[in-house]
Structure formats: structure tokens, C-alpha cells
């Protein structure tokens, strides 16, 4: 791959080389088969009744590079993905994001199926309808059936767009675990500072909180956990993403939404520039993905009828690009930072198979539509045949 990078290959060629490299490593390490869209399984749609179908989307938060994940030297950082999840999944090696590489705007683009162009640091709603709005409007689902668990900074508006045909009242309910914890500790949570870590790209950016009553009400009424129990459990956790997964599991147990979107973010500590913290973030995220997968298998409302998608919002800069500083940021817009992967696992989805054709990150929303039975009419991607 390095040779291709140096020889001035086109971006398209580089993406393809990158995908092939990922596939080869996966094939070596996990013994996965190479798939083809021609072998689309006819039984895919019939596996579960559509009404009961559920989807959990996990963004592999903050973006990680191949060399710290799927390349041979990085596989030690993702043992759970390699040994538990990929053998049970269809794995896409070339998911290309052509949009803005900022976490909020990129996650919003994933959730709308359109490359959003708003200022990543602005507290605004996505311009285009979100997957949650399509899902709820088309299928007439209540607000309790679509949830987002997200890091606090800026993500509080990701559940609902400003689009006039959708928008107000049709979005997902958004739960921000760090805000919950802040509210639960009445803002004096010195013992919880490790769980209240900020977005490292914008440590100084803290959107105004909406008040604590609603959050505490969520905690007590919806998640059936007392403030004291929540606080004491939080003390056993080590990172914001662990807190998010804890909340997501409570949601799955108590509310069992059909569409659950979890945005992990610990890996983005890479912006602080310390390589050890970045790798630690990848290892933790790998473990948390496994935990979520196990939760899906164990929860009666989810077991056997849930499709799990795991994908990064984008990658990080390559070591080769002198304009960046390698793993630290995602500012150059180079091929490595734009080319990521996705795994899909669940009933009707082929297991232990890898696809290296190019998939657009906007394809996720139409794919979710095909699985859950709604039409993402304004999304610009198209359903991924291999999983619908």
C-alpha cells in the first residue's frame, strides 16, 4: 500500500488497495471468505418478521486507522472484533466518506444519508431528515422506539433534523450520559471527572445544558435506576464510552427501542497527541462493541431479531501525508482518513464473509430503511444489497 501511495496512484486506486489490504489481513487472521453481491442470500429478508426487527448502530468512535486495527500490527488492539464479531458478520472493507471529517457533522451525515455541510462546532440540527424521522414517520412509531446515546458535545441535536417535512416531534430521543451524570452529581462530581471527559478536538466547547430535571427523570422513570445506584455504578467505570454503553444497556433492558444508535468517542483522545491513549481508546472500544453484541444476544427483546452495524464515522490521517501529524488528527482529507470499514451482523446476514467493493457512507440509511421497512426518500445513498 505504501508503494501505491508513493507512486501517486489516484484516490480511487488507493481506496481499492486499502480495501484489498484490509481483506487480505482479515482473510489471514480470521479465515473469512471473500463475498460477492452475486451471492445475495434469498433468505435474508425472511429471517425475522419486520415488525419485530431491531437495529443497533454503533459508531466506532473517533476514528481509528488500519495500522492500529486491521493490519497485522494492529490486530492485537481489536481482539474482540477479530475473534468474536467478524466471524459472525459480513464485513465491508471499503466504506468511503466524501464528506466533512468532523465528528458531529460526519455522524449527522451517516444518520441522514446526505453529506451535511454545517459547521461541525455549531449547535445545529442536521439539515436533512434523519434515519429516526424516516423510521418513525413511515412506520408510525412512538418516540420511545428510536434512541441515540451520544457524547454530549454538540450531539444533543442529532436525533432530529430541521427539515420542514420531518423535524419537530418526529426524531429520536437523545440521551447524553455525561449530562446525566453531571445532573446526577449536581455538577460537583469531582470523583467522576474521568467520565466527563470532553471532546478532545474542542475541549473548550460546552453547549449550554438544558437543565437537570428532564435528565434525572429519564434516569428514574425510563431506565429504572436510582440516582444513587447510577452514581455508584459510574464510579466503577473508567471512560465516557463505558458510561454510554452502560446507559445503552439499561435502555435495551427497560425500553427496548427498535432503532438504537450509539456513538462512541473515546478514541478521539488521539487529538491530544498521546499515542498510548489513542491505542488504549481503540482497545476499550473493541471491548465495548463486544459487550454490546453480547447484550443483543442476551436481551430477549433483541436476541435473534436484531441487526448490529459497527462502523467508524471516518479514519485518521496517514503517516505518509506531511500535511498532517499521523494518528493525531483527521484534517488532511487524505484517502486513509476517508476510507473506513463496516461490519453487519444479525439474522439473515451472511457470516464470516468480506466484501471489498466500495460502499458510500451515505448507504447506511437506505440500508436501514430496507431492513426496517421505511423509505429514506431524501437520502442520497442506496441500500447495500449484501445485507438487505
Amino acid at each position, binding site marked *: 500500500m505504501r508503494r501505491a501511495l508513493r507512486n501517486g496512484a489516484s484516490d480511487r486506486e488507493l481506496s481499492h488497495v486499502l480495501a484489498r489490504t484490509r481483506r487480505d489481513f482479515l482473510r489471514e487472521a480470521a479465515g473469512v471468505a471473500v463475498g460477492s453481491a452475486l451471492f445475495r442470500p434469498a433468505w435474508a429478508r425472511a429471517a425475522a418478521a419486520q415488525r419485530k426487527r431491531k437495529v443497533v448502530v454503533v459508531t466506532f468512535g473517533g476514528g481509528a486507522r488500519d495500522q492500529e486495527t486491521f493490519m497485522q500490527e494492529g490486530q492485537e488492539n481489536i481482539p474482540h472484533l477479530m475473534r468474536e464479531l467478524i466471524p459472525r458478520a459480513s464485513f465491508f472493507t471499503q466504506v468511503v466518506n*466524501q*464528506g466533512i471529517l*468532523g465528528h458531529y457533522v460526519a455522524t449527522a451525515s451517516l444518520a441522514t444519508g446526505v453529506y451535511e455541510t*454545517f459547521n461541525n462546532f455549531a449547535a445545529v440540527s442536521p439539515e436533512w431528515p434523519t434515519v429516526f424521522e424516516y423510521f418513525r414517520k413511515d412506520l408510525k412509531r412512538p418516540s420511545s422506539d428510536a434512541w441515540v446515546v451520544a457524547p454530549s458535545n454538540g450531539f444533543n441535536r442529532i436525533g432530529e433534523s430541521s427539515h420542514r417535512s420531518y423535524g419537530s416531534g418526529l426524531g429520536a430521543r437523545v440521551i447524553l450520559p455525561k449530562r446525566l451524570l453531571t445532573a446526577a452529581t449536581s455538577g460537583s462530581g469531582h470523583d467522576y*471527572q474521568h467520565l*466527563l471527559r*470532553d471532546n478532545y478536538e474542542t475541549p*473548550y466547547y460546552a453547549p449550554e445544558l438544558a437543565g437537570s430535571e428532564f435528565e434525572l427523570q429519564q434516569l428514574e422513570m425510563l431506565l429504572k435506576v436510582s440516582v444513587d445506584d447510577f452514581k455508584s455504578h459510574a464510579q466503577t467505570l473508567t471512560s465516557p464510552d463505558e458510561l454510554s454503553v452502560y446507559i445503552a444497556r439499561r435502555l435495551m433492558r427497560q425500553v427496548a427501542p427498535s432503532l438504537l444508535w450509539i456513538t462512541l468517542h473515546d478514541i478521539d483522545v488521539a487529538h491530544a497527541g*498521546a*499515542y498510548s491513549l489513542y491505542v488504549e481508546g481503540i482497545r476499550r472500544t473493541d471491548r465495548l462493541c463486544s459487550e454490546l453484541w453480547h447484550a443483543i444476544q442476551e436481551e430477549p427483546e433483541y436476541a435473534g431479531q436484531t441487526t448490529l452495524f459497527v462502523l467508524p464515522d471516518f479514519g485518521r490521517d496517514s503517516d505518509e501525508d506531511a500535511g498532517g501529524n499521523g494518528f493525531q488528527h483527521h484534517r488532511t482529507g487524505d484517502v486513509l482518513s476517508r476510507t473506513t470499514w463496516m461490519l453487519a451482523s444479525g439474522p439473515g446476514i451472511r457470516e464470516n464473509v468480506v466484501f471489498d467493493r466500495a460502499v458510500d457512507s451515505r448507504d447506511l440509511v437506505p440500508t436501514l430503511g430496507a431492513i426496517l421497512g421505511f423509505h429514506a426518500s431524501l437520502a442520497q445513498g442506496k441500500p447495500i444489497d449484501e445485507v438487505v
Partner: protein
Amino acid sequence: MLPSDLKSEMFAGYAAEARKVVTAHLATLRQLPLSFVPGLLRELISFDFKFPVERKARERELAYLDSLSQVQLKECFRDFSEIRLSRQLEEFDWVKQPGQFVERLSAHLWSTHQLDAFRKASNDYADRLRAAVPPEPPPIPRLGISVIGQGVTSYNEPLFRKLRPHGAYFTGIKPENGLRQLLDGVTARAKAHPLPYGHWYIDGGEAVACDPGLTCGSYEGLAATRAELLRKMQEQIEQPGMGPEALRSFLAQLRPGDLGMGRQSGDEVLQRFEVSVLTEGSGTQIFSTVFAQWAAREALRRAQPLTMLVRFAPRQRQKSMNELLSASAKAPAEVDVIGSLVDGDFAAYYNWLNQQRLAGAEHSSFLVWFEGHSQALAIGPSIARGTESRSATDLQQVLGWMS
């Protein structure tokens, strides 16, 4: 305003040397597209405080542009000319604030999906410039040294994994006086080939005494500056309506005097460099390992030294970012020695990569040593790649083999 409207009086606010350079090349600048000129002015506005190598490079670039005919300029900048800009960008005062313009241009390129086109235009221009005005080879082969793992008593994981294929791995280094030997070697090079900002020693902790022929900087030496910077950042963060872009603009405008650096103590070029490391580098204010890596990267990129010794020291343990930013610099911080070793190990790889981006890379050498231990790795034209030596030796001897 467009570049064709440029007049010499618009640069009255520039420092003397910068003004002189810009006005001398105004006729050429007027012919260049708006997507390009502010980026060039961003470099030229601080011309008075650039390293000698940077000044020379800019002068050669401008001389090259002057040598092109109108048709050739048009051809050279065609891709830049095709970048669509907004009215707001055109109306921005990019002569006075070229840095802020470039930030806004970046946001515009992302949101209008023109970033790839701009990247291509920039890379093509850099290639063309490199071909027309090749970088000058260094007078002697460059030497980079990274010292990692200070304070670690034992570590069983493999080190130098990224660098091993490129050089020889030594496991029989006698660690006694290792740092002294390296500093002596670096000092000897500085004395033999004196060059302003040509030989650097950057320490992620407290610097040991160094020869005046070396350009020295350290994380601890900047403790007061860092404390003042963190105080200012905290003050800004608490301002209503403050956002990341506004803070970045604020940081970009800070000068040594704003952070308590005394003008009488001399070298404003170096002080400005240090301030830029702390204000432009992410994490440099709070993690010593990140400071050392970024300072080395920027020194290599900008000053293009002949010698670069970087010593990594334990960084503070991770806390929430707001805690790190608000912490008093005087409060004792708990350190993470193993994490710092991992940081330093990877940063050494980046130090090597950044050195290899400079002219004369094929003759350059690089050494990384696990401080206080017997492991080191050497890379250079005279060192066999992918080899391992268990023989007892010391760092002075290894430096000798590399030269």
C-alpha cells in the same frame, strides 16, 4: 478584494522585512488567485521572525514566481483559479489577517466539497516548485536522535517496531553516561559545523545543561509560559459565546510578550517558535511527550536542522481535558511512565519520518535509545537494515558507526 487590487500601502502594518519582501514582489502577487495569495501572505507576514532556511525558501519561491511570464503564471495557478470562493471570503481583510482567512477558506473548502481539488492544486504546485527550485542539500548529513522511556524501570513489550525494518537493533548498549555521550556527540557536530538554528536539543522534561551552539528548548523551561497560556485559555473559555474557532483565532494572535516572555532575554525568532508550538499544537500545553514530538516536527519542518536530539520525559496521567486545562502548573502531577514510553516510541518514528522528508534524506542517520537501558536502534547509510546486534557497546560507539 482580489489580489489584483493589492497596493503597497496595504502592507503598512507588516513588520519591516515582511513589508520589504511583499512590496518587492507585488507585481507578481497581483497576478495570483485569491485561493493562493493569503496562504503565501500568512507565511510572509511573519517573515521577520522566520528561521533563516524558511526566509531563503520564501525568497527563492518568490524569485521563481517573478521569473514566470503572465501565461506561465496563469498555467501554473489554473487549478487554484478554478476554486470557487464565497463573497464573504472575497470581502474578508486577508491582507491584515491572512491566517484567519486561511482558516475560513479551509471551512469553505470542506463544506463545498472542494478540499480534494485544493489539495491537488497545492500538491501540484509544490511539485512544480520543487522541480524548479530544488531544496538545497544540507552541508553535512543530518542526524536525528530520540531518547525515550525516562523513568521506566522495566518494560517487556517490543520497542522500535516501526523502525526496526529500517536499521540495526542493538540490545547490548551500556547505558552508563548514555545521555552525556549523545549530548557530547551533538555538541561536537555543532562546533564543527556551526549554523544558526542548525543543531537542536529539545527536552520533554527539564533540559540538562547544553552548549550555546545548540538551540535548546524544554517543556519545563516553558512552565511559566504554559501556565500563563492555560490561564488565558481558561479565561477565554469562560467568555459567553466563545467557540473553538474564536479561541483558535485568539491563540493565533498571541505573541511572546502576551505570555510573559521577556523581550530582553533575546531571541524573538525562537520565542515565536515556542509560542507557536504551544498555541498551534494540540496537546502540547498539557502532555510533555506531545510537546516534544510536535516541537521536533515543527523544528524539522521549519528550521531544517542538521542535528536534532529529542529527549522524551514522563507526561502527566490523563485526566478530563477541562481538568488538564485548568490545573495549576505548580500542582504536582501524577505521571504515566509506561504510557510516556509508548508515546515516545511512536513519536521517535515520527521524528525519523519528518527528518526523512528533508533534503539529503538518503544520507541521513537516526538513533533511538531506551534511556537507562540496553536497547537502541540505529538507521543510516552505513547501517545494515533489519539486523540485530547483541554485542556490548555504548552509544558513543554507535554514533561513530553511523557517521
